[in-house]
């Protein structure tokens, strides 16, 4: 690591500590709300401790929530008390399946559209209209036709992942350098071999960019989708903890969503590096 790296790392750490400090100070119990002995007594009678959790939780509460959740991530005590790993597993499974289905459709279709200017132009209006639709707008339709909340969630992930992949695949395939195609032509390369050995590697960086965008959107959408359909998943967990008014848990979940999203993005960045080339 270079000196610059260490400096930026140090600055990040300082910023984080400052943030925690401000948070800590801002969430201290107010002095003016000094409780009388009678009120303390009353609180004790109501079964709540002297320090009642009111207002925004201070950082140490979040710390406690993190420890609690991470100490037993795989617990499963009924629908409203599942470990964080189980919830994440459900979300990741939905995203994974929806995303995989989107690949199965978008890659071949994108290839065909990219290779045929006619189809490109013919399908473009549909894609342009369908692309900006919020994936959640499909939810009622999905619930009505599929009649299964879990599958509807998967469908929503599928529909939001498919557009960036389709558009990028078609664009990448349509813009493969003419020279490379001419090389393939003069070598009489068969269509399938040409698609796999020339067009696919040439378009791979663009395709992977589309997938990375898709995955980013899918991870955004899954939280909202699970809030709607309920049952399992990290989105449902957030909603459930909000209904319990357990803000530390909500903040913990937000943190987890951010971290998992970052890991997913890093994975795709790695894949991108793997297929990228310099001319």
């Amino acid at each position, binding site marked *: 690591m270079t000196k610059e790296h260490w400096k930026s790392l140090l600055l990040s750490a300082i910023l984080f500590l400052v943030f925690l400090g401000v948070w800590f100070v801002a969430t201290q119990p107010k002095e003016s709300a000094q409780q009388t002995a009678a009120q303390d007594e009353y609180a004790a009678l109501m079964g709540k401790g002297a320090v009642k959790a009111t207002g925004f939780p201070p950082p140490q509460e979040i710390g406690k929530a993190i420890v609690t959740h991470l100490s037993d991530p795989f617990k499963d005590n009924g629908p409203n008390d599942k470990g964080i790993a189980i919830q994440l597993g459900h979300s990741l499974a939905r995203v994974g399946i929806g995303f995989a289905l989107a690949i199965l459709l978008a890659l071949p279709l994108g290839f065909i559209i990219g290779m045929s200017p006619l189809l490109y132009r013919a399908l473009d209006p549909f894609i342009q209209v369908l692309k900006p639709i919020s994936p959640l707008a499909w939810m009622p339709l999905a619930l009505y036709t599929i009649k299964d909340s879990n599958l509807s969630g998967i469908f929503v992930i599928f529909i939001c992942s498919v557009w960036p992949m389709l558009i990028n695949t078609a664009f990448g395939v349509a813009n493969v*350098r003419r*020279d*490379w195609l*001419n*090389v393939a*032509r*003069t*070598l*009489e*390369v068969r269509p399938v071999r040409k698609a796999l*050995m*020339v067009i696919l*590697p*040439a378009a*791979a960086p663009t395709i992977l960019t589309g997938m990375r965008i898709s995955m980013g959107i899918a991870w955004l959408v899954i939280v909202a989708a699970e809030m709607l359909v309920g049952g399992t998943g990290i989105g449902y967990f957030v909603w459930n903890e909000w209904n319990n008014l357990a803000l530390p848990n909500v903040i913990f979940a937000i943190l987890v969503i951010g971290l998992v999203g970052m890991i997913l993005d890093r994975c795709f960045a790695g894949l991108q590096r793997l*297929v990228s*080339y*310099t*001319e």
Partner: protein
Amino acid sequence: MAFLQVENLAKAYPGNDAPVFEKVNFTLEKGEFVCIIGHSGCGKTTILNALAGLETASGGNITMDGREVAGPGLDRGVVFQSHALMPWLTVIDNVKFGVRSRWPEWSKVEVEAQATKYLEMVGLGAALHKKPAMLSGGMKQRVGIARAFAIQPKMLLLDEPFGALDALTRGTIQDELLKIVQATAQTVFMITHDVDEAILLSDRILLMSNGPRARIAEIVEVTLPRSRTRHDMHHDPRFYRIRNHLVDFLVSRSKDPKPAGQLHPPVVRPGEDEPAEPPLAA
């Protein structure tokens, strides 16, 4: 019948009444090295692409080895102006891609051996596993040449392969190309802008007039001995006669269309002419 026969080739683009070139006639014998020279826009690249089968002419025929040229094929190897290497493949994989296309039934070892042999021929034996991005322009073009030679085509088509190279690199690669062509007796058709390059490499030089309605105005026979090299050919008085003839054509005569109605361009041998004699006696 000549190995390659081009008859009345013409190219017109729709909406443009004047064709880029028309009535283009020439032949190539087996083992011959022919260069084509002309100003930009006269359609040299289009002619080469038509020979390669990458473009279709709007008129005329091309026959090679007794068969009509229709579409690209493995019997013609093309070296592209922009080398056209696939940047995600290593040097040897680029060449192997061609070899495997030519002989799909070959084993891995055979493919590898063929690719290595031709890469060593162009002096790239030490760079087999590098990616093209790590090579200089001259080395990239060498890979392009090796890829075209490795499929052992009946005819090699080179589209101004050294245009983007500096003079020194150009000289070395010309020497290498000359060596390989002599060793393999390859038939070559090449576009160039460089008069000296054309004299060094070719047996005959096709001179094209300016477009539109460009044609082959003259065919110049290079009468220097085939053993010429870059270092000694300029000591031969014939070299300057040929060179002057070519430069004169490019500077002053290429604008003026040659006698109309003449189907086959005149063949001239400026190297053998007495300086006083008019160049167009034939």
